[in-house]
Every structure is written in structure tokens, then in C-alpha cells.
């Protein structure tokens, strides 16, 4: 063969450029003249400028690319089994995947549904293929994650919890925050939900902590499967970020939209922070068995991905278009992460609620304490004794932490807005909306419920904005229920009908696992219901006491 001659050079023939292909495809649409298109869900935004597609997306290059990515993912899963991955994986990590993978397929498929709304709302057809690809991507993510979960269930030592995954998702006190996240993508004002909350904030900012930081930690715990799946997922997200930015640029073009954009960026950033950092922060910091002091903590990852990458390079440039960016919100979120111990306090909440979840949470130990103190100076003084108590109370027959009088933990109120617990006690607040008292984790969550999710915003009618609904307060659903009865009602009991699905330890031994009998007689109560029943004076005192916080009792011998 002559030098430089390749098969491609021999066989290639002139084709059309990607730019030309994209231009031709964008011309498939037309303005109906016989019957107007059915409208999708309403928006208060004005959309008149067609979004551009700088990525020139075409389906015929998309499908083979995705098939190739899939082949790599499924090949890697086979290789992980041949390499006996589960012999060496850390159970502490895989247990938290029961929670994470119960939540995430629904947000993914909700994003697919959102593309219906954006496809119909966005003027012009240039970005149509981008939305189509994203729709199929999200279908990919949802089902590839269901597949990963099934794979864990089939190969991990304790499948219980994976086996009821979607049922657990609908019921668990922890997954409720994931439902708020997902429904936020597709309910209410269509642009608020599908473009700002989903694309501009969740996809652009928080998929980095979800799908880049998480896989790193998985690999440190001997789990090669999650990185393989989720980095493949993340490789789709860059296109979604592009779609979101293009539509944002067409929305931002109209100054009439600026007030709503300012509102939605505040709401979406704060709620994404509250939800994603609660779940992913806890999983990364407390679901790992790796305590390498050279690795980044979640707070350090947050600073890199959210503060440096998103806030400084994505949000700040929006100011030049006249959008008011609330720098203090980002600072407040950062303070919650590093000064107010948000993630650590959320981890406490997950841990004390273990009987009403569906995975195992083991106690943190001395090795963990050393790492936490190194990364978060002062951690041990505030949280060390809590985890020692938790370790002691993990033995069957001990009083559950929630109801134990010895350790001093006080179950938190639930935030009506983000649905996370109000764990930063000094920031706890209440307000009255439509004659009813609600509880919030922070001032911005109060604002979200009372001001943002309303029919008017700063004097401007916002008839398309959504409303918070349903039985949002999980504790209210089981108010005054016996704990064991609630666990049975949730379905969080193993196949023998008595052993609990959740366990506060990693002992894979019937003799050391909790059963319904071990739970004793305890009554679940909703702090919010109790608050509403109080007299105004008692309520004021309760709020003051709550804001003052609690002190974990010293653990005997330490």
C-alpha cells in the first residue's frame, strides 16, 4: 500500500457538511395554518426569539454514538463481574446506592417529559433535534440506571431494598426530597420548570456533583460499575447544558423576562443546593469507606464545581444581560456547607430515621472521625459522640436513636419547600400561607413557598406558576402511628415477614439483625402537626428553643 493511503481516502466521497445537515433539518418545521398546534403547559415568559443550536445536532450521528457508548457500559459491567468486583466492594457504599438509584430514574424520565414542553414552546426548529436527543438521552438514563440497580440486586450480598426499589421510592421519608426535585422539572410554569430549574441549574450545575463527584467516590470503594454508567450519562449532559443555555439566551433577549429569570434562578439554585447537597453530600461523605486525606471533601468538590465552575463562569456572566444575580445566595449556600455543617446534620437525620428507610446505614468509626476532623476542623466536637451513640444503639433491642432518651438528638422539623429537614436550627423559620402555618429550613425556602410559588410576583401576575400540593410533610402521613406498624405499612420488612429491610449496621447475619419486635412501642409524630396545635405563646417558645439547637449528650467513657 502506498504511503499515506487509507481505506477512508480510497472510499470517501463528497458529502454534506454537518452545518448544512443541521440547516436542512431545521427547515423541516413550518407554521401551521389549518389548525394551531395544541399548547403545552403555560408559561409567564415571553418567547419570541428562536434559540440557536451551536452544536449542530443531527440524529444520524447521535444513534451510533450512543450505541457505542452503551456497548462500552455493558461490556464494563460484564468485565466487573468477571473481575469479581463484589468480592472487594465496600458494602457501606453499595447500601447507599439503594437510596440513590431508587431516586434518580424518576428525575431522569421527568427530564424526558420536559422536552415535550420545550420542544413545543421554543420558537423555530433549530433546537428541535437537540431537544429530541435529550428526550431519548433521558430515556436512556432512566433505563440504564434501572439496569444498574438490577445488576447490583443480582450480584451484591444483600439485595433487600433493591428488590422493592420503585415502591420504596414512592414511600420513603428520604426519597420525598427526590420527588420534589423531579416534579420541579415538569410541573408549574413550563419555562421555570423545564428550562431554568432543570436545564440551567440542575443539568448545568448539579449534575457535576451527581455524576462526576459520585463516580469518583464509587471507584474508591471498589465499585467500577457506577462510574462506568454515570460518566457515560454525564457525557450526554454537556449537550443538555448547551440546549439550556441556548434557550436561556433567547429568553434573556426580552427584558420583560428578567424579573422572572431572577426569581427562578434564586428558587432553582437554592432548592437544587438544598436537595442535591443533602443527598449527594451525605452519600459521598458518609457512604464511603475511603478516608484518604488527599482526596477532596464534598465541600471542596462543591467549591470547584458549583462555586468556581458554575457560579463564576456561568451565572456571573448573566449580569451583563441585565439579570440580577443574588451573590448572597451562593455565599449563604457555601456557608451552609462549610460553617453550618449542612451535610453532616443531614447525615444525622438519615441515620436516626433508619427504621423507616430501606437500606443499611452503619455507624462512623474512629477512622472516619479522623478524616472528618481533618477535612472539617471541629467536626468531632459536634458529631463524634452522636456516631458513638449510633454505634451503641445499632444492636438489636437497643432503643432506636429517635426515641432514645440518652443521646439528646431532637428530630427536626421538615421544610415545606425543599422537603429536607430543617437541620440548621438557627435558620429555622415559619410563616403563614393561606391561613396555615408552615415550617422552613431557611429564609429562601420560606420565600420560595410564599413569594415565588404564587399567582403574583412583585406586582406582576404569574398565573402559570405552580403550587406546592399533596401530602408534602412525610411525618404528617404517619403522625401518631406506632413505629412498627408504620414500617409494615411502608413495606420495609424482608421476605421472612419480620426482619427489617433497613439495618443500622452491616452485619449480614440473622442473629444480629433487627426485627419488628426489636422496634418496641414508639409513636411517630410530626413536628409540624404538633407546632400547629400549640398556642401562639407555646409556639413562639418552641421556635426559640428549636433555633437554640440541641446538644448531644457525652458518650460514656469519652
Amino acid at each position: 500500500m502506498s504511503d499515506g493511503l487509507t481505506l477512508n481516502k480510497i472510499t470517501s466521497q463528497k458529502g454534506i457538511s454537518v452545518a448544512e445537515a443541521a440547516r436542512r433539518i431545521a427547515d423541516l418545521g413550518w407554521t401551521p395554518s389549518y389548525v394551531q398546534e395544541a399548547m403545552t403547559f403555560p408559561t409567564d415568559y415571553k418567547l419570541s426569539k428562536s434559540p440557536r443550536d451551536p452544536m449542530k445536532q443531527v440524529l444520524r450521528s447521535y444513534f451510533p454514538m450512543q450505541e457505542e457508548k452503551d456497548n462500552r457500559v455493558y461490556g464494563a459491567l460484564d468485565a466487573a463481574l468477571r473481575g469479581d468486583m463484589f468480592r472487594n466492594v465496600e458494602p457501606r457504599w453499595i447500601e447507599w446506592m439503594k437510596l440513590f438509584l431508587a431516586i434518580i430514574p424518576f428525575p431522569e424520565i421527568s427530564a424526558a417529559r420536559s422536552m415535550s414542553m420545550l420542544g413545543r414552546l421554543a420558537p423555530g426548529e433549530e433546537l428541535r433535534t437537540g431537544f429530541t436527543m435529550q428526550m431519548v438521552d433521558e430515556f436512556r438514563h432512566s433505563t440504564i440506571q434501572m439496569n444498574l440497580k438490577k445488576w447490583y440486586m443480582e450480584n451484591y450480598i444483600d439485595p433487600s431494598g433493591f428488590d422493592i426499589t420503585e415502591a420504596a421510592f414512592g414511600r420513603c421519608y428520604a426519597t420525598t426530597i427526590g420527588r420534589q426535585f423531579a416534579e420541579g422539572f415538569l410541573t408549574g410554569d413550563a419555562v421555570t420548570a423545564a428550562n431554568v430549574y432543570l436545564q440551567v441549574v440542575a443539568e448545568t450545575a448539579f449534575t457535576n456533583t451527581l455524576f462526576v463527584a459520585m463516580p469518583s467516590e464509587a471507584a474508591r470503594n471498589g465499585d467500577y460499575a457506577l462510574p462506568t454508567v454515570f460518566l457515560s450519562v454525564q457525557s450526554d449532559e454537556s449537550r443538555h447544558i448547551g440546549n439550556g443555555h441556548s434557550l436561556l439566551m433567547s429568553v434573556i433577549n426580552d427584558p420583560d423576562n428578567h424579573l422572572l429569570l431572577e426569581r427562578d434562578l434564586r428558587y432553582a439554585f437554592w432548592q437544587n443546593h438544598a436537595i442535591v447537597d443533602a443527598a449527594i453530600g451525605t452519600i459521598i461523605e458518609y457512604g464511603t469507606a475511603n478516608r484518604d486525606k488527599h482526596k477532596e471533601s464534598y465541600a471542596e468538590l462543591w467549591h470547584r464545581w458549583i462555586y468556581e465552575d458554575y457560579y463564576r463562569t456561568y451565572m456571573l456572566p448573566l449580569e451583563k444581560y441585565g439579570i440580577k444575580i443574588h451573590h448572597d445566595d451562593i455565599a449563604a449556600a457555601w456557608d451552609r456547607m462549610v460553617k453550618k455543617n449542612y451535610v453532616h446534620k443531614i447525615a444525622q437525620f438519615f441515620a436516626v430515621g433508619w427504621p423507616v428507610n430501606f437500606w443499611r446505614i452503619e455507624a462512623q468509626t474512629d477512622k472516619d472521625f479522623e478524616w472528618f476532623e481533618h477535612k472539617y476542623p471541629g467536626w468531632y466536637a459536634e458529631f463524634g459522640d452522636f456516631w458513638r451513640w449510633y454505634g451503641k444503639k445499632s444492636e438489636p433491642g437497643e432503643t432506636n436513636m429517635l426515641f432514645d432518651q440518652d443521646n439528646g438528638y431532637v428530630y427536626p422539623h421538615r421544610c415545606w419547600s425543599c422537603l429536607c429537614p430543617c437541620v440548621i436550627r438557627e435558620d429555622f423559620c415559619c410563616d403563614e400561607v393561606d391561613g396555615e402555618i408552615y415550617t422552613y429550613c431557611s429564609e429562601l425556602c420560606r420565600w420560595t413557598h410564599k413569594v415565588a410559588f404564587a399567582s403574583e410576583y412583585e406586582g406582576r401576575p404569574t398565573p402559570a406558576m405552580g403550587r406546592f400540593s399533596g401530602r408534602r410533610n412525610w411525618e404528617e402521613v404517619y403522625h401518631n402511628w406506632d413505629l412498627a406498624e408504620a414500617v409494615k405499612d411502608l413495606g420495609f420488612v424482608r421476605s421472612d415477614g419480620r426482619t427489617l429491610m433497613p439495618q443500622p449496621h452491616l452485619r449480614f447475619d440473622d442473629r444480629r439483625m433487627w426485627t419488628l419486635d426489636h422496634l418496641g412501642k414508639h409513636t411517630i409524630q410530626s413536628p409540624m402537626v404538633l407546632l400547629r396545635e400549640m398556642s401562639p405563646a407555646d409556639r413562639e417558645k418552641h421556635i426559640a428553643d428549636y433555633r437554640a439547637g440541641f446538644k448531644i449528650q457525652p458518650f460514656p467513657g469519652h
Partner: protein
Amino acid sequence: MSEAQAPLEAARSAAAGAAQFAGSDSRRYNYFEPKGRKATHYEDMTVDVQPDPSRYLLQDWIISFADGTPTYSQTWTKALSSDWHAFRAIDQEWERTHYQRQSTIVGMIAGAVENGRRAGVWKRFDQAWIKVLQNHLGAFKHAEFGLGTSTMHAQRYGYTQMINSAILTNSSYKLRFAQDLTLYLSELALDIPTLDLDAGKQHWLESPIWQPARRAVETIGGATDFLEQYFAVNAVFEPLVAELFRSGFVMQVAAAQNDFLTPTVVAAAEGDYQRNLANAVELFQLLAHDPQHGEHNQALLGGWLEQHGALAIAAAKSLQPIWSLPHVKTAQFNDALDNAIERTRTIASQIGLAASASLAA
């Protein structure tokens, strides 16, 4: 070492079977009833991913639209079901199978077009046929696009993951095919400089031949009931207009115009439609035979068949002049139309609907 501690030392591995304890052998999703004896992989990937307050959604939907409508509502279609969760897509599509199939089609079309162009197939195309491709295949691609955007819109509104995913893959197939046709014609134009790539859209928008088809497609796009859209696409427009044009004209006539290439491209859509149709028939026959709402649904679907059928029949008849355009006439319009009507009647019958008056040829 105490007896209680001993098993801990033994269970060093986290692999399945490393220890026996309550629930350690529970290795199947156990929260739904499989359609068959055992759950298929598709069912495991799909069922209950979109939750429902009547099943496991303990706290109900937690965000609503301003009028109180929840995130998903059964009111988004006039069809009624005693069990929306009963439907399973016949094609059992989940992400991996979808990409495998789509990618195979893309590769097949790319290979065929590449080889056809290299062989100079266009030099042997009959000149009148090139005009047909330019004007009418060029117009038809917009109909396919319209069906794709309608189903893309509809996949937001279904009450279960099974229904929405079937509509989603339907949309993916239609939009891919609309692009296949667009790019095929664009590549032909590289070899046939006289081929006017704007003529197809002009015909779609202005030619009297295509206006009834455009009206029918826009009517589907304007429907506010997502199942009406899904029904009108697969049970009405596809067999009466789209398949009529694809199979009843292009596939039968092209070879006689020395064109072996176009049928290869168009054949992909026929394969897509078989799967989309099977899914749609399965869903609508379930609704038509619903133990509580069958009668209501039959009347509803019958109404949709009547309304969209009348528009589709008008669209089909309006296409008749196209059959006269090729120099070599190997297919008769009336035969093709009869086949399309018979096909549509068969679909209606499989769903459980009585023959519609609009289907009288």
C-alpha cells in the same frame, strides 16, 4: 471470639451468596405483576418508574399546576381505564434495544446511500422520477416530521411509564425518518445539481396535492388529547396516508424508474411503523376492551377514527395525481388506496372498533 461475631469474619466478600440471611435471596424486582410468568427485562426497566398515587406514591403528587392539576393527571385524555398500568409495549423497547435498532437503521441507510452514490445510481434515475423525489418525497418528509413532533408532545401526558415510553420511541423513530429523508435528498442533490431542495417544503405548504395531508397532520398536532394524537398517528394517518405513499407508491414504483436506492431508505420507516403500530394496537385494544370503560372507549376511539379518518381519506385521495407522474407506471392508485383502507379496517378491527363510515372508499 464470641459466637455472634464469628459470621462477621466469614462474610468478608460482598458478593451474592457470601452469607445467608433474611432477604439474601430476594433478587427480583417484586413490586409489580409481570405480564407473563416472569418479568421481562423491559418490564424491570420500565414498570413503576413513573409513580402513581394509586400504587406507591404515598404523599401524592407534591407540586401542581396553578389550577390544581397534579404533575400527572388521568384527565389529560378522555379515554378511561380501570388499570392504566396493564399496558406493556409489544416491542419491549428500553434504551439499549432502542439505540441498537436506531443505529442499525442509520448504518443501513448510510451504507446504501454511499454505495448507491458511488455506483452513480442517480445517472440512471428517470428524469420524471427525480422530480417526484424532489417535490413529493420532499413534501412527505414534513408529514413525517409533523407526526414526530406530535408524538414528542404526547409523551409528556401518559399516566404510566409504559405508555409514555412507547410514545417516546415512536417519536424518536418518526423524527429520525424525517431527517433520513431530508439528508438523503440533500446527498442526492450533491450529484444532481438541478435537484431543488426547497421544492419539497414548497409543495408541502402550497401544492393542492398536499394540502389535505397537511391539514390532517396539523389537526393531529392540534389535538389536546395525547391519546387522540397517538391514535390518529398510528391507527389512521400512518395506514391511510403515510404507508399508502411509502409502500403503495415509492416502494412499488421506484425500481421501475431505475431507482433501487429510495426504497431502501423508505423501507426503514415501514419497519418502524410495524413496531409503533403493534404498541398502539395493544394499548387501544386494552382500552376498547376495558371491563369498566370499554363501551365509553369504543365510542371515543370510534369518534377519533371517524374524524381523523375523514381527513386522512381526503388526504389520501388528494395524492392520486402523484401516481400518474412516473414514466413507468407499475402501481395503480386505486389498488393502493383499497389496500390502505383495508389495512386501516383491519387495524380498527384488531383494536375492537366497528368499521367507520369514513373508511368507505
